[in-house]
């Protein structure tokens, strides 16, 4: 036993190893579905065989060469980009307001701002469809981005608020005491120091939008997003193109997670 790691519960000798084995099995349960799509995506067969009878890149080619897939991907990227930008700005403002404000109703606002996470996406979809139909936003990608921004704002607010809470306001005051305006103080002193939180928040917002299916399904009309195309593909059990897409998405998330871990702060389920 090292001086830093204290034994926590004095248990029977077999208990901790048993719990570790159990934990390993749970991690296997978590990782297995991610790992299984890799060999399937490189399969040469159109049918599900495991292990695959042969290996090829045909499903990746099928993805790249199918304009429907590519269109859907580009549309989803555009939506996620816009939604992230909106959510990042508004969520950060909201975080500032909640952390710095001394007004009544601040706590209530804090609770309400987390609601989009609690409200089931199907409920929000039905709700926002009515409004967007009236505003003639159905089928337009910026409309989906707006709705996705609503869903992403809580993530941004929670992550940025956590970052702001650890930031000492005295630094901002010191900057203002040295002649900076409040805006300059925030821009030059505060924002650079909570940058890891902002990066993590942007990452969360992007993924939240990029993977969102139900709202996009309702608001998208005939213009499919990537998740909608994937959903249809799975429903109809078309072919393993979906496996190739899955591998690409897992790779993207791994990449973003690595970046967020390197430059961000505490990327965790923020709730």
């Amino acid at each position: 036993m090292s001086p830093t790691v204290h034994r926590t519960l004095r248990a029977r000798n077999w208990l901790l190893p048993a719990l570790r084995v159990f934990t390993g099995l749970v991690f296997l349960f978590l990782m297995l579905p991610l790992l299984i799509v890799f060999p399937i995506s490189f399969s040469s067969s159109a049918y599900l065989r495991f292990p695959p009878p042969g290996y090829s890149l045909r499903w990746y080619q099928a993805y790249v060469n199918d304009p429907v897939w590519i269109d859907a991907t580009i549309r989803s990227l555009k939506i996620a980009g816009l939604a992230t930008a909106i959510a990042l700005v508004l969520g950060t403002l909201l975080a500032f307001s909640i952390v710095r404000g001394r007004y009544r109703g601040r706590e209530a606002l804090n609770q309400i701002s987390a609601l989009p996470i609690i409200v089931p996406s199907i409920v929000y979809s039905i709700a926002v469809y009515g409004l967007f139909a009236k505003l003639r936003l159905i089928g337009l990608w910026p409309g989906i981005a707006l709705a996705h921004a609503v869903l992403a704002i809580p993530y941004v607010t929670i992550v940025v608020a956590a970052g702001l809470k650890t930031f000492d306001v005295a630094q901002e005051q010191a900057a203002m005491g040295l002649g900076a305006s409040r805006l300059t103080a925030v821009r030059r002193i505060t924002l650079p120091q909570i940058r890891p939180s902002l990066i993590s928040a942007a990452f969360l917002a992007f993924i939240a939008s990029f993977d969102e299916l139900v709202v996009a399904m309702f608001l998208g009309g005939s213009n499919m997003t990537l998740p909608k195309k994937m959903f249809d593909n799975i429903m109809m059990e078309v072919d393993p193109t979906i496996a190739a897409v899955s591998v690409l998405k897992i790779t993207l998330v791994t990449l973003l997670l690595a970046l967020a871990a390197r430059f961000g702060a505490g990327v965790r389920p923020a709730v």
Partner: protein
Amino acid sequence: MPASAQIAERRQSRMIPVLRGEQGPVMVGLLPVAFLGLLFLLPVLRLFLLSVEGGTLAHFDKAITSDLYLTVFIETFRIAAIVTCCSLLMAYPVAYVLSTASPRWVLIGLVFLMLPFWTSILVRTYAWMILLGRNGVLNQALLGAGVIKQPVALIFNTTGVVIGMVHVLLPYMVFPIYSAMLRVNRDLLLAAEGLGASGWSVFRRIFLPLTMPGVIAGTALVFILSLGFYITPALLGGGKVIMIAVLIEQQVRQFLEWGFAAALSCLLLVIAVLFYVLLNRLGRRETIA
């Protein structure tokens, strides 16, 4: 910074009273509040109006009195409860092992939790279909090994839906419990031991109560999120497992029953928020004590 720029900036900040004084935080919050008000609260409010369209409660009446829809509600609660229990039973030991692990293993463990967590639910659901399907990897392996004679039905039933949902929701359970465990002062456990408590007593009297806020938070979150699940039951349920969200979607897309779908949505929303408030209060009491 040149003096002129400084003056310009001062003037600018004077022109934006938003960022000055005690009013600042209030003003700064106005834009996001307006945005959420317009695109979140307003649509939800309209949903409530839609559910009572024509000034009657007929939709609610239909949702509550019809056996068909009541069954869906009960089934939803049942699955949510099973998923929550499974997640809790899996998450508590995992969180405990993580909370006692060395930094390197914590990092590895977090990667194993985060990677699936941030992977698209569609990808994961699809992967479960590959694994658990009639001709899936698991069945092929079991048949090949001679353990079973015929493929076992692991998807397009409640089992499949539960497996898929637990996979999605497990991290939501692990993280609050894990952080509650990290907050437990290890001296308390030593103190209890020194005062004569056995390992089991230390767990039951000290460790479990102190990690209870995390358990409650995780349970609340997983249960509430379970209630509104759509993708997993829609795909892994194969049309046989109907949860509320699937029902709502059917009502709209197949039957264009917007009013009825709105009523179902309102019920789902009210139930979810009710649980949220209830468990929030319970959690708060637990933290205070």
